[in-house]
């Protein structure tokens, strides 16, 4: 594991910033996550080593945005591209956060970090150079949809960081696209702060190529009366790990999550979510879907934490899984930790294969087996895909998935 060796010998990066130094120092005391802990227990160690076996390459080749035509009325940004963003229009403004502001922001964030739980963020922030950190402050209304790209480069480990502060009374749609390359690793950490009365429709689409790896972490803080809708899709990664941590800082906020991961061949993709309700009247509706085929392994672990203060919380979590091969495996662990008594919390989990009765019904109507399976899969995918915002047509996610399955 090249990266770990470099962390140990303090040779990770030249001229580190203060934040990088701080994170590096934290990592040096325990360079690897605790594989005995619930958060890392199921992670495939050899695949994880593959992730860490690339060197950091700061000189990345030029990146061409996919579907560059047809994207009027969308603000498209690439993390790592040295471009000053300062959009001040009549109704809204999108400003880039200064380095000092970002420093201040990260210092506060790091003070809450747990070495094991935020290991991916610590690694990301110690690797991510100033150029690869995109910080935005968004304000106003009628903001056009935004697409933000993070991409990996062949034979190297890239680290990209995104910070978005959504000021009060804002309403935006944002699609984040993480693209893996052949033999590459991408570490992506995202930090959102959604202030009062704001709403964010957020989509995360991550797909890789042959043997690409991804460590994707998402930290969201929701203030009073905010709404956060998240639709995610992860597929085609040798190893991918998606960590979602959402805090409703004072409760009275709404969170909807629809996430999906699709694994094939010998891939391992996992999703870990942790939702903290730090105040009363919080709402959560979460569904995670997994599909595992061939010899792959899909993992979902979600925890909902409802302390005493979070009375009248209404939370539900559902994990639905399709296991399509004799050699694939699925692990799922939806969990509830509740201290408040006046709450409505429930969770459910199912693991099965395609519904035989439905298949039979369609076949009696003259639909062939492959077509019937495709129909079933498309309805399975559609629920999640329709929740991912921003120019869904352009990305043709459903076709992409159906053609591959």
């Amino acid at each position, binding site marked *: 594991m090249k990266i770990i060796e470099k962390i140990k010998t303090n040779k990770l990066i030249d001229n580190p910033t203060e934040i990088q130094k701080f994170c590096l120092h934290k990592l040096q005391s325990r360079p690897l996550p605790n594989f005995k802990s619930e958060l890392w227990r199921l992670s495939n160690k050899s695949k994880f080593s593959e992730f860490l076996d690339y060197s950091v390459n700061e000189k990345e080749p030029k990146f061409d945005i996919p579907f560059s035509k047809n994207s009027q009325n969308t603000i498209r940004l690439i993390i790592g591209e040295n471009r000053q963003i300062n959009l001040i229009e009549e109704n809204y403004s999108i400003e880039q956060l200064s380095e000092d502001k970002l420093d201040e922001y990260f210092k506060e964030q790091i003070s809450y970090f747990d070495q094991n739980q935020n290991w991916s963020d610590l690694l990301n922030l110690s690797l991510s150079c100033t150029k690869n950190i995109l910080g935005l402050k968004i304000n106003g209304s009628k903001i056009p949809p935004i697409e933000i790209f993070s991409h990996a480069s062949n034979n190297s480990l890239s680290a990209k960081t995104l910070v978005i502060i959504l000021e009060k009374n804002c309403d935006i749609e944002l699609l984040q696209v993480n693209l893996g390359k052949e033999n590459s690793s991408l570490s992506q950490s995202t930090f959102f702060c959604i202030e009062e009365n704001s709403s964010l429709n957020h989509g995360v689409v991550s797909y890789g190529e042959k043997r690409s790896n991804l460590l994707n972490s998402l930290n969201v803080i929701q203030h009073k009366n905010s709404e956060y809708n998240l639709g995610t899709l992860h597929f085609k990664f040798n190893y991918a790990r998606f960590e979602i941590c959402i805090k409703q800082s004072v409760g009275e906020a709404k969170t909807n999550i629809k996430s999906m991961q699709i694994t094939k061949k010998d891939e391992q993709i996992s999703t870990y979510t942790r939702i903290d309700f730090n105040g009363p009247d919080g709402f959560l509706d979460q569904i995670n879907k997994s599909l595992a085929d061939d010899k792959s392994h899909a993992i979902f672990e979600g925890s909902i934490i409802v302390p005493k203060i979070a009375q009248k919380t209404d939370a539900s979590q559902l994990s639905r899984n399709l296991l399509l091969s004799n*050699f694939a495996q699925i692990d799922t662990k939806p969990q*509830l930790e509740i201290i408040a008594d006046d709450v409505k919390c429930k969770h459910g989990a*199912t*693991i099965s*294969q395609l519904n035989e009765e439905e298949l039979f019904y369609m076949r009696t109507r003259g639909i062939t087996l492959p077509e019937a399976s495709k129909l079933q899969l498309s309805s399975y995918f559609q629920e999640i895909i329709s929740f991912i915002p921003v120019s869904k047509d352009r990305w043709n996610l459903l076709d992409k998935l159906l053609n591959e399955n």
Partner: protein
Amino acid sequence: MVEENLVKDVVKEPYKYGFVTDIETEKIEKGLNEDIIRLISHKKEEPKYLLDFRLKAFKKWQKMEEPDWAGLGYKQIDYQDIIYYSAPKQKEKISSLDEVDPKLLETFDKLGIPLTEQKKLTNVAVDAVFDSVSIATTFREELAEHGVIFCSISEAVKNHSDLIEKYLGTVVPASDNYFAALNSAVFSDGSFVYIPKGVTCPMDLSSYFRINSGDSGQFERTLIIAEESSSVSYLEGCTAPMFDTNTLHAAVVELIALDDASIKYSTVQNWYAGDEEGVGGIFNFVTKRGKCLGKRSKISWSQVETGSAITWKYPSCILLGEESIGEFYSVALTNNLQKADTGTKMIHIGPKTKSTIVSKGISAGNSINSYRGLVKMGTKATGSRNYSQCDSMLIGDQASANTFPYIKSQQPNSEIEHEASTCRISEDQLFYLQSRGIEFEEAISMMVSGFCRDVFNQLPMEFAAEADKLLALKLEGSVG
């Protein structure tokens, strides 16, 4: 609130089994080492294979670390400060109940356990275990007529050594976990049941475990073997006196069901739970596991857990035989500062195996009540099914209810369904019942009983009524 105070008064009802029997006991010195294990084995006149089994387990235990994943945060146990063998002094061999020390009989009488002749009419055979030894087993002759062996495990070692050697440690190996290894090294007594081929046990079998001394641990071991096409229903009850110190209870229960056999194992656990400040109480670390070895075999666990300061217990089923069935029905109630981490493991290995899990957790006071369960479908478990349902009820805003279901599947041709919910005593329902003239406590008790109905329906008659009362008693005063 008036209602709150009323409830609190009722909850303060003392633990009625907390008395100590003043009886002369034979104890060995405190501490745990190879010599102590040899001494226990010698006292029980055990064959060499059993001593070897104990010593091997002890060696493994020494290398193991006490598990902390359940996050129970209990006071560290000093394993050298425990007496590993304590027995009431009595005549060497008891041929009839008349020879049992009357004080002991009195104790079990107080506990409502039918050991004496006049109480035998209840038609339940009882094996009563007092600290480290079995005191008496009733209805032996009647059972023997059917070929059923029901005795203490020490007797079984002497009289049915072949069965013990064949099955002991096959379901829960000595190195299974920290507490199972400890038990394998120092187990003192427990019950042994053997149901021969084709026999339906004519009566319910029952074990009653009583811890009497404050400084000794109880390490019993139960082994139940149901041969082809046999069936048995086994009940287990536990109580202990009130001490300010914590007492360790680390038991192992192994069940084996062969082709078409069925075992129903019911527990009402009412160990002393400590006082309101959390002083004293039993640390209950139990490994219970059943192996459905044969085709169409069935193992059903039902439990009502109300006692113990700490409960760490996961009765499990290994479903090996084709079409075998595993069931788990549980009610766990915690109050004051009790902590319970309990659940089950259903390991589906054979094809067409089925399992059902129904778990009801009720947490009141400042207690923590967690359900932790595993459902695993192995690669050969084609056509297998699992259904799990875990409901929690929270009473008061200081109690905590957690659910940690681990679900793993490696077989596409199997189905797993899990659902969990959390609720509280609904004020509307309470109001409705009260407006119909039902007293406050009774209304609460009715609602709790309704919440637990799915599980109580699975309990044998004797236990169901007792469990209902026990729950009402334990809960009173905790609702505001």
